[in-house]
């Protein structure tokens, strides 16, 4: 089994909405106001209006539940959703919380992504499973998205 680069995705996240303790954990919603994506077969921008509905669980794992719309440079709209997990040593997570740059290999930040597209030239996105490696920067996360072959 192999994988190959689908794209690198960077999203812009303004200050999040901190909802606090809810029945399943601590809910923080991160609206996404933009971003860009670039890969061998697709590139373009992230439209404003999506977000990441994150939940910090009782076992300190952060669940990520992202929905965004991508607009390719040739005008196609692609819906992307992903579910992922982020966890790591307390000191690393504390550094992330302080907005510091942290080596992404110091923590686990992986998501599984799915896509929807009606444009025929992007129809392959409807049929693939993808895994993303996250790198949480102060300005917002950068994802390296890999197609599982």
């Amino acid at each position: 089994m192999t994988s190959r680069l689908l794209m690198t995705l960077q999203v812009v996240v303004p200050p999040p909405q901190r909802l606090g303790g809810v029945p399943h954990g601590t809910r923080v919603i991160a609206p996404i106001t933009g971003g860009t994506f670039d890969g061998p077969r697709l590139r373009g921008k992230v439209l404003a209006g999506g977000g990441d509905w994150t939940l910090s669980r009782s076992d300190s794992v952060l669940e990520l539940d992202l929905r965004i719309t991508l607009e390719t440079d040739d005008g196609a709209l692609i819906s992307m959703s992903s579910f992922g997990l982020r966890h790591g040593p307390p000191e690393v997570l504390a550094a992330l919380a302080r907005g510091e740059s942290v080596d992404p290999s110091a923590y686990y930040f992986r998501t599984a992504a799915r896509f929807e597209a009606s444009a025929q030239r992007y129809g392959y996105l409807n049929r693939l499973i993808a895994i993303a490696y996250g790198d949480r920067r102060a300005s917002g996360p950068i994802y390296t998205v890999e197609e599982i072959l």
Partner: protein
Amino acid sequence: MSAFESEGRRPGGVHRRVVLKAAAAAFVAGATNAWAGFAHALAGHGHSPIVNTRGTAMNSRPLMTVRIAAAPPQKLGAVPHGIRSIVLVSGGDFEGPRLRGKVLPGGGDWLLLRSDGVLELDLRITLETDDHALIYMTFQGVRHGPPAAIAALSRGENVDPASYYFRTLPRFETSAEAYAYLNRMVTVGVGEARLAGAVHRIYEVL
């Protein structure tokens, strides 16, 4: 808990339903093969990890191979999102370097054949380890391939899994401390439709 609810559902291709019905019937025929060979040695040990063709980020290691025994499907036919078949799970087993045990009866796979010919899988089962921990496993996935390969599957033939795409995204929940690592990992499954039932080789994404 925020379940993996990011699955998109697209409007059904109503005009293609007749074609899809035929395809669904063919698919279901392939899925109904009775579980056999349940006792024979587990395959899948020593399968290679995910290889990243860029030679960079992606690393994985085998988590386990899950073999699922299924009852004959309930064929619900055309529903708004495609052709629905529900396959109830009657048992099975799983084995990997860190865990092994049996699949409890009672779960199922809620299959949807989409208008673009892709079969969506939506599975919920319970695993019981050999030391009696219960693990809730779900996945969503896709299966598709060249018409010839899919047709051969529906005739109940064994088909080289490399000839079709059958990938899933398993998730786990457990309260057992010994298996709590399952709560914290992202995994990918490589599926194989065999005469004896579906076999899923699951890799932990490192």
